[in-house]
């Protein structure tokens, strides 16, 4: 069903994608737009997480792996052991926003050091109030929210802010569901959390992002600051990994990925991410061309 | 002296008229038997005498039924009080899933009797029902462990314990063997010293043996709807009904039985 509309080149077959739930909406958006062109191709997008995705990818079960961080060495080794060759593509940019309730009127900017002080494993049970971060802040109880331990976002944030993946105080409220985090932060007077910029944009009435000072002054999270790299360290690229053999042997996979890069800005907009810079697009196209 | 009177009583189930135009008196300290073929409305009439029919959806009564001269269907009469004063024993023994003792004590408790000693009250009720000797060693055991006949006597004891004035019995022996039946019949005769008893039975000999008066009912087609409805054919001294009935239908029924 659903097929039989205007046929592009009449391709069919399956494109199997798995991996990060952060990146999944992007690949879904791509698949969505792609269906208008090639209705015969079935694109499936599962969300086993970045690591789970790589596991399947390196076992040859999937064509595409969505990832919110680069592949790790041991994961690459698993691919190599199974003779899977792959190519990394950057498909969009994302900003990790540091978020407070919309009603918060005392924080406008936090430095990376302050963030580290708030979130570090050593602060567990010790840093409990905003005025411990900066005496100018009121003596309001800190209520911390963040993604669950299984997400790429968690890995990324802990690495950038606390210097080690997974290193974080455990007395914050985790949830895999970003809407739940929005609910939580907006409802706590001293709420603070971090998650993808898109959820801030969509919930502007409830929460707002604060500026982050990565050493070169306060920078607001925005499309421009993420694209030009000034929103450090919390701006990050999103990846898809493609199985080289799939790309060269399955015309539907090739067609899908070419389309993905071609239409990246439209796709990013749909999924509420930040599009690629012209430079990034050129790199991606070159990578794909080299695969033939 | 009549304790209960029925004047021109009709009983309906929804639109269906199960009993039509019954007028009769029930005398104190007598046993009155209701006999007649199946479906002629004996149970229906009996249940309307203590407002047990209130529990059946759609059942209602027209005409007048009085108890000690008071209309029991008057608006300010509490059906609960009627049922306490006019007890009932059913066809199938229906002890509660409780101990023998609790089966008897239940009634006095719920109606708020405050006997000086519940144990005495239980003993007396069981004694009157001729059951005490058989169960006195197992009062705390479940009533379900008793035989059918014992269960039925327990149900009678339970009824006596709340001190009713009238006891209605709907085929109380039909589930019992002859020996158990005999004991219950003896019990009825003994109880009528203190109570008024109205009994429905299919067993003609039983009526002949125990009843002072007997009423014969049958089912006839209703004049208007054509549905069969129960009517009172003849009501008289038991000996008269059995030896020399006035109505041919009574004669047929009784002799058919003895044929």
């Amino acid at each position, binding site marked *: 069903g659903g097929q039989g509309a205007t046929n592009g080149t009449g391709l069919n077959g399956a494109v199997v994608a798995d991996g990060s739930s952060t990146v999944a909406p992007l690949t879904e958006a791509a698949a969505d737009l792609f269906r208008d062109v090639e209705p015969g191709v079935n694109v499936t997008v599962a969300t086993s997480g970045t690591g789970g995705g790589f596991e399947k990818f390196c076992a040859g079960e999937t064509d595409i792996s969505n990832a919110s961080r680069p592949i790790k060495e041991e994961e690459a080794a698993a691919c190599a052991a199974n003779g899977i060759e792959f190519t990394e593509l950057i498909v969009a940019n994302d900003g990790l926003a540091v978020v407070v309730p919309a009603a918060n009127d005392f924080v406008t900017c936090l430095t990376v050091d302050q963030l580290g002080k708030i979130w570090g494993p050593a602060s567990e049970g010790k840093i409990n109030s905003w005025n411990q971060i900066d005496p100018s802040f009121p003596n309001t109880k800190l209520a911390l929210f963040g993604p669950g331990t299984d997400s790429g976002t968690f890995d990324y944030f802990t690495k950038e802010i606390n210097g080690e993946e997974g290193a974080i105080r455990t007395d914050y*409220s985790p*949830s895999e569901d970003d809407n739940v985090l929005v*609910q939580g932060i907006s409802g706590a007077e001293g709420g603070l959390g971090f998650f993808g910029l898109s959820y801030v944009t969509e919930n502007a009435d409830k929460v707002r992002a604060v500026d982050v000072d990565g050493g070169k002054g306060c920078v607001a999270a925005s499309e421009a600051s993420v694209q030009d790299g000034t929103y450090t360290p919390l701006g990050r690229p999103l990846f898809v990994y493609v199985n080289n053999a799939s790309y060269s042997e399955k015309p539907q996979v090739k067609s899908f990925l070419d389309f993905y890069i071609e239409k990246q800005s439209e796709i990013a907009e749909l999924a509420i991410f930040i599009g690629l810079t012209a430079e990034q697009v050129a790199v991606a196209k070159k990578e794909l061309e080299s695969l033939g | 002296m009549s304790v209960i009177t029925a004047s021109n009583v009709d009983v309906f189930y929804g639109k269906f008229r199960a009993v039509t135009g019954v007028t009769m008196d029930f005398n104190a300290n007598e046993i009155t038997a209701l006999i007649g073929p199946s479906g002629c409305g004996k149970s229906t009439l009996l249940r309307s005498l203590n407002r047990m029919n209130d*529990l059946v959806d759609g059942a209602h009564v027209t005409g007048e039924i009085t108890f000690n001269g008071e209309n029991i269907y008057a608006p300010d009469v509490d059906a609960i009080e009627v049922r306490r*004063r006019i007890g009932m024993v059913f066809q199938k023994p229906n002890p*509660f899933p409780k101990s023998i003792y609790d089966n008897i004590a239940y*009634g006095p408790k719920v109606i708020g009797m405050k006997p000086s000693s519940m144990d005495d009250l239980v003993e007396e009720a069981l004694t009157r029902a001729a059951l005490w000797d058989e169960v006195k060693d197992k009062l705390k055991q479940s009533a379900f462990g008793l035989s059918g006949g014992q269960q039925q006597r327990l149900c009678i004891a339970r009824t006596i314990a709340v001190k009713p004035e009238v006891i209605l019995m709907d085929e109380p022996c039909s589930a019992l063997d002859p020996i158990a039946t005999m004991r219950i019949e003896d019990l009825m005769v003994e109880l009528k010293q203190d109570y008024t008893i109205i009994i429905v039975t299919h067993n003609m000999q039983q009526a002949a043996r125990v009843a002072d008066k007997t009423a014969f009912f049958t089912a006839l087609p209703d004049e208007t709807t054509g549905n069969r409805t129960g009517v009172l054919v003849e009501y008289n001294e038991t000996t008269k009904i059995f030896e020399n009935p006035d109505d041919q239908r009574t004669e047929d029924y009784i002799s058919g039985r003895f044929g």
Partner: protein
Amino acid sequence: MSTLTTQGGPAKSGRPSGLSQQSPRYGEKAVYLILRISAWLTVLITAAILVAFAIPSIEFFQQVPVLDFLFGDRWAPRFANSSFGVLPLVTATAWTTVIALSVAVPFGLGAAIFLSEYAHPRLRKVLKPVLEILAGIPTVVYGYFALTFVQTTVFREWLKLPTEAFSVLAAGIVMGVMIIPTIASISEDAMSSVPQAMRQGSAALGANRMQTTLRVVFPAALSGIIAAVVLGISRAVGETMIVAIAAGQQARIVGNPLEQGQTMTGFIANAALGDSRVGSLEYDTLYAVGLLLFILTLIINWISIAFVRRFREVY
């Protein structure tokens, strides 16, 4: 009246007069075998559960001592500085279960008594299927209702309770509401199957409806009612989506019902959504918690069977 020629005398039935079996009935034997095998398959399933849970659990317990698991009070399996004390999960489960039951048992039994003893049969015929349909509302829907309406709107905006984003109370209450239909429906069945003769016997003694209900019908149906409550407990202990959404995800010992907490099922759901590799410690953790959950429900069930045996009435 036709003549009775074909009927004839019984001795002329034309069949052999002996009594031994006329045919071996192989077909019947095959059917019996199929039925028997089907019944045994259920045992196979239990065996499979035990094996499937035992293997990863054994691996888990080689790395985490059983006592540390059972009595440790810090649950942080995925953090850099990991710890595997399951007590936080157990306390959260206990809270949500107790709260759910304190909602579901009174309301469920109240509804059941009303339906069985007071409602007009026609009303019952309508309400009972409606209840059963309500029992089928997907728990995902309940979960968001608990979070956005009960916790956020009611608790925090209207009642201004000192609670944060999540609470075991909101999850527990909504879970209780979810279980009401289950408890009501099964206890209603139990009470309806108490013979009418019991009610008549009680009424004939001058008991009113309330007395009859509470002193005769209710005790007589007790075994069925206990079974209903126990089923409610198992549903509460095993319910996943509501707690995963509304109870919070922070694994810590829950001290009061306005706190958040991660239940056993909440942990499993979340961890399974992530990327646990088969054979990794995280994966084994899932099964260790699953095994604990399984054993807990078994214990609850055994207790209930013992109760039901004790209280069963045969009419």
